[in-house]
């Protein structure tokens, strides 16, 4: 697999939390460069700061020090509206708890991000993506009528439907049993390969981590690239 241009770059990134007794330095001076098309796993003990790092990289949270540049533009310099536009056009998420809207059918859930950007043909695109994840016959079902694994597949379809350049997944199989988790992982990687999306994934599962091109371990406030 060939690595493209630099997509995301963290420079001297640091994050501090104010706690009751003082400050907690989660990490300092963290540097990370991610190229377009790469798949990266972030691993580490619970509480190491994986989710925090991910939200910094996605521009959902602001760093205490350092910068994150997306396609060469520092995220901190963008306005709320510009960041929203960036998320709408370029970035997608898959969450551990699937976060589907209960009042919408599977198809409408997938179509939602397309509707938000006022993209034409949202419905047909949504049903096409549901077919891609093997739920072509469940388009009219509501989340409450789907199993956990099926719900996560709808969430994957939703993430890919927008054609993102960058996809974040925080423990996407955390709420699923092993076999179902395995299917989801297969789906995720095969779609990712087709689409050439850059994937940043948090996981506790070392097998899953091994399927990524790069593995980054976060511990004691520093990152280490595993070979």
């Amino acid at each position, binding site marked *: 697999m060939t690595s493209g241009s630099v997509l995301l770059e963290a420079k001297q990134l640091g994050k501090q939390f104010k706690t009751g007794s003082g400050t907690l330095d989660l990490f300092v001076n963290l540097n990370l460069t991610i190229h377009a098309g790469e798949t990266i796993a972030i691993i580490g003990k619970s509480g190491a700061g994986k989710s925090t790092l991910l*939200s910094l990289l996605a521009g959902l949270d602001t760093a205490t020090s350092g910068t994150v540049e997306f396609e060469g533009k520092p995220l901190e310099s963008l306005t709320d509206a510009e960041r929203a536009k960036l998320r*709408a056009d370029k970035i997608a998420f898959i969450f551990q*708890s699937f976060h589907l809207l*209960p009042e919408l059918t599977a198809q409408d859930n997938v179509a939602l991000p397309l509707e938000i*950007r006022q993209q034409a043909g949202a419905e047909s695109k949504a049903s096409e993506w549901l077919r891609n994840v093997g739920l072509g016959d469940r388009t009219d079902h509501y989340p409450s009528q789907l199993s956990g694994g099926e719900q996560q597949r709808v969430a994957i379809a939703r993430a890919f439907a927008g054609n993102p350049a960058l996809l974040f997944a*925080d423990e996407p199989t955390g709420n699923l049993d092993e076999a179902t988790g395995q299917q989801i992982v297969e789906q995720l990687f095969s779609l990712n390969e087709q689409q050439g999306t850059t994937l940043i994934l948090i996981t506790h599962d070392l097998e899953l981590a091994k399927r990524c091109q790069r593995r980054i371990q976060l511990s004691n406030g520093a990152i280490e690239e595993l070979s």
Partner: protein
Amino acid sequence: MSSAIPRIARRQLWMQLRTIEWRVLIFAALLAVTLTSFLSIVSDRLESGLLRESASVLGADLVVRSSRPIHEQRTELAKELGLTTTQVIQFPTMVGAGDNLILSSAKVITAPYPLRGEVITDPPMSATVPEPGTAWAEERIIDQLGLSIGDTLQFGYADLVLTATLKQSPDRGSGFNTLNPHLLVNKQDLEKSAVLGPGSRAEFRLLISGENSALKSFETQLKPTLESHERILSLINDQPVTGNALANGLSYVRLSSLTTLLLASLTILLALRRFGHAQQSRSALFLSMGLTPKALVTLYFWQLGIAATVIALLGGTAGALLASLADLWLSGLLPQALPNAQWSSYIIGPALGYAMLLLLGMPPALEQAKVPVAQLLRSDQSSTTQKASWGLYAVSLVLLSAVLLLFLAAPAAAAVLLVMLGISGLLFGWLAQLILHSLGHFLANRLALGRLLIMRLRQQRKWHRLQAGVMVLLLMLLSVIWVARQDLVKEWQAQFPEDVPNYFLINIQEWQKPGVDQFLADREIDTELYPMIRGRLVDLNDAPIRPQLNEEQLKDNSLRRELNLTWREQPPVQNQIIQGEWWDPESNDHQISIERDMLEDLGLELGDRLGFDVGGQPVSGVITSVREVKWESFQPNFYVIFSPAALQSYPGTWITSFKLAEERKAQANELLREFPSLTLIDIDQLMKQLAGWLERLAESSAFVLIMTLATGLILVTITLLQALEQRKTEVALLQTLGARATETKHLDLLEFGLLGLVCGSLAVFSAEITLAAMNEFLLKIPLSAHWELWFTLPALASFAFIAIASLLRAPLKIEQCYAILKNNG
């Protein structure tokens, strides 16, 4: 933004209608909108039908109203200025047909009439004034007398043929005239009927219309020469009649609806706040998909707007439907059908619904924009509790208060009430929580559940404050209004002993007096005729009185209009001399016996000399005695009585009142047949009408009370719901730690039982204080405790809390406990 937003808003509202907070919100908002619509439509109809003296109901551009025949000069001045004029004489009179009599308001008119607005009759008439020998009557006269078109009715000595039903007419007159059914009569029939002798009580009006500039100069020229018995009504100084009992009743009912609106607002506020919290992960999801914060807020305003539209439509319709029953509800009391309401009164309720939802929804909607998207990365579902934006809430509450005050149309009174309700709610809540806290400590070592109870009371203290504040206020208001109403009715009935006169006979002319005396004596009707002469108080101790009085005294009624004067040899039996001495009937001195209040209000003393202007002639006398008058005795009562020597020679009419038992009422008809020009006023009919209005007033305040109670209970429901998750976690923890399900249930019972007891007791306490103050200062009746309140209120409060709480939650099974703890971890 995106055209998808309204659709997303609609879908999500539709789903969320199943949540308790939206149901509670919709219910509270519907009650508020329905009540407001109903009240604004009905009061608009009553006001425009009976109270408002606006252009179209004035019947002219300008009216000179007088208690004496209109002066020639007035008419001439108007003619000189090129204005059109016409005269109206209106007075109460009994109209008869067969054996039936009804008290009505006769309006004697000549063409052109009216100068503005129109008279509508059924069947429609080409003329706007009845032909001589005919009359038009409002529905209630026709109903009561059992007439149909073409029948004859008796108007004094004249028999008139009823040719049309009067559906609508401007120029209703003032006071009792507005509520009595009208009879329109041609001026040419007045003399024949002989109902109006010299000095008779009547309202004389000069209706004027024409060019604006001419009207203005008429008014400016008239003003300096205006006499005390005259008044100008014009579009410029046109205002709704204040001090009218019906108007007061209406504003009372409207004001009492404030509590309902306040409780509904609080409910909506809490429901929307809860909704806002529940929306956080949804909002985070929308933001993660790239919806801008601005679009997200727009989305929530769409949702609120859609909900408000539904509520406005439903509530507005319900209010209008209820209001359309008003004619039925007020039947027998109204002189004619009420006019339709102005369209603006239909939108007040719905507008209030929009204001409530959008203003109270503003803080939670704006807060959504600040939801951190990163919270989606957490594995748990619990939303982060953000700091509430108090500034936003303050702004929205201030705006909403402004809207409420605007609606209530009596901003000062409403503002005072609003502040009082707010402060007492806070105070009661704080007190109740304090008492509950000490109770908990007292019970801590005496009950098995004591320590758990303390923990619970501490954890729920904020909610207890709110719940108690609302509950105490609610129970207190309800019991005060309930008890005070009963006291008022008792007081009202006690005022009129059995043998008070039920007929007033007025306008008896000098030449009729011997005949009337004879008639009454023949039938052994025990009564006495009083002479009545009108005069204006002008001098005090031989100098003009006005410069000698202070500002407050100048406002006294006795100076603003003509007084009814009388003369007597003996003091009236129902009056008591409290100062000075009654005169010797033979004395030639001009003496005065004065009523106590008038003496005090004007700062007069025994020995003062009062001078009156009686039809242009000066009459004076020295105050030699002061009387206490029982105004509610239904006897002719007078502020000023002269010794015979002073007033005997002046022309006047005679007045009397007497009692006729139910079975002798036919004698009233005989009297009128023999003396058709007398004005007989049936007090029973009047009282029945008055009692009817009072009853309706009581019913409408009961209606408002029920609405208040309903909103209050909804509010308690939402406060209990707020704490529900917290309670569930706590109960689950206790149960997994080994407490039995029954124990946690007992803890709930204990908590709500105590809360109810404390609230009930506080309510009893404050209700008793309020009632005592009312009895002491307003009703002036002896103080008494209301024992029935002492146990009903605490019992009621405890029951309400326990009932709502147990409706809201079924006991938890142990498996559920684990699930709850796991999710909230």
